[in-house]
């Protein structure tokens, strides 16, 4: 059975290495600051014992005051999983660091989030629309798109 790791345990491990980066550690998920997302992701992937080598899914959610991107991470070796989240409060031009360098899964999925929600990912090699055509106005999954 895949063990869903508690956000609180992981937060305890991270606080030592990356101080002030954890915003909220709940039982099911871990919310971190957007600026430290790349470092924490690299730490989660490369640390023996955690070894999150498989990024299951990247989803974007539009809460009206912020955008949240949710990363579902899994470790094939240890069979445990974690939900990592990062928020971005800028409504006009949301930007988050990309994790394509660590997990290539994020290539198409981040492009899709850019297309449908408008969140730009810094460091993505090929950020352009994937499901809709260039010249489509607006980002459909936003709550204010009619």
């Amino acid at each position, binding site marked *: 059975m895949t063990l869903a790791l508690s956000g609180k345990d992981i937060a305890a491990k991270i606080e030592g290495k990356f101080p002030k980066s954890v915003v909220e550690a709940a039982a099911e998920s871990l919310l971190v600051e957007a600026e430290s997302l790349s470092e924490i992701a690299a730490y989660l992937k490369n640390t023996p014992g955690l070894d999150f080598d498989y990024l299951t899914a990247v989803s974007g959610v539009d809460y009206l005051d912020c955008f949240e991107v949710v990363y579902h991470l899994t470790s094939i070796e240890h069979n445990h999983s974690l939900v990592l989240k990062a928020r971005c409060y800028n409504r006009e031009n949301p930007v988050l660091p990309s994790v394509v360098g660590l997990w290539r899964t994020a290539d198409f999925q981040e492009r899709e989030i850019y297309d449908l929600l408008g969140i730009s990912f810094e460091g993505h090699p090929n950020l352009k629309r994937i499901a809709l055509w*260039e010249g489509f106005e607006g980002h459909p999954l936003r709550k204010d798109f009619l």
Partner: protein
Amino acid sequence: MEIEEVYSSRELDKVEGKAINEFIAGHQQVIPDPDRWLDEELERNILLTSVDAVLNWARRTSMWPVVCFPACCAFEFITTEASRFDLSRFGMEIVRASPRHADLMITAGTLTWKMAPQVKRIYDQMAEPKWVIAMGACAISGGIFASSYSVVPGYNRIIPVDVYLPGCPPRPEALIHGIRMLHQKISRKSLISGGE
């Protein structure tokens, strides 16, 4: 190995996107169904000559569909062509990839605005006489996705449709019924009336 870019994919995307936007602007009205010639025939009391009968027989017994398989209805079309509901007894087993060889377009799937210019291009390339069967709810009116931001509400926005076939997806028996209806329509067409 580093290869220099032969084309710029962003530029190409922009050009295609502009073409799609222009296409959307130009295709907001429903194209009327091409069956006015059916009414004219009754008015003018034209009888079919034997030339017409032979031509119509030849046309309807070997209609070749063109490849136009966006979505789920495509699989009901493929199973209609398979061994159980054999379509080759109607002479239609050859699905031509090249639209120049085909004379029937069975639109099997939801049409999105991104795909619409391509379908129109395939339809334009088909040689006359050509017919269209709109298969499935998505082809008639957009179906379950009608209110979506990227779905064309029915193929009759971009091409004239001869037979509408409801179902989601229509069973193979329903598809064969639709094809038979088209055969009946073709067999009433006359050279003299100059129908489309």
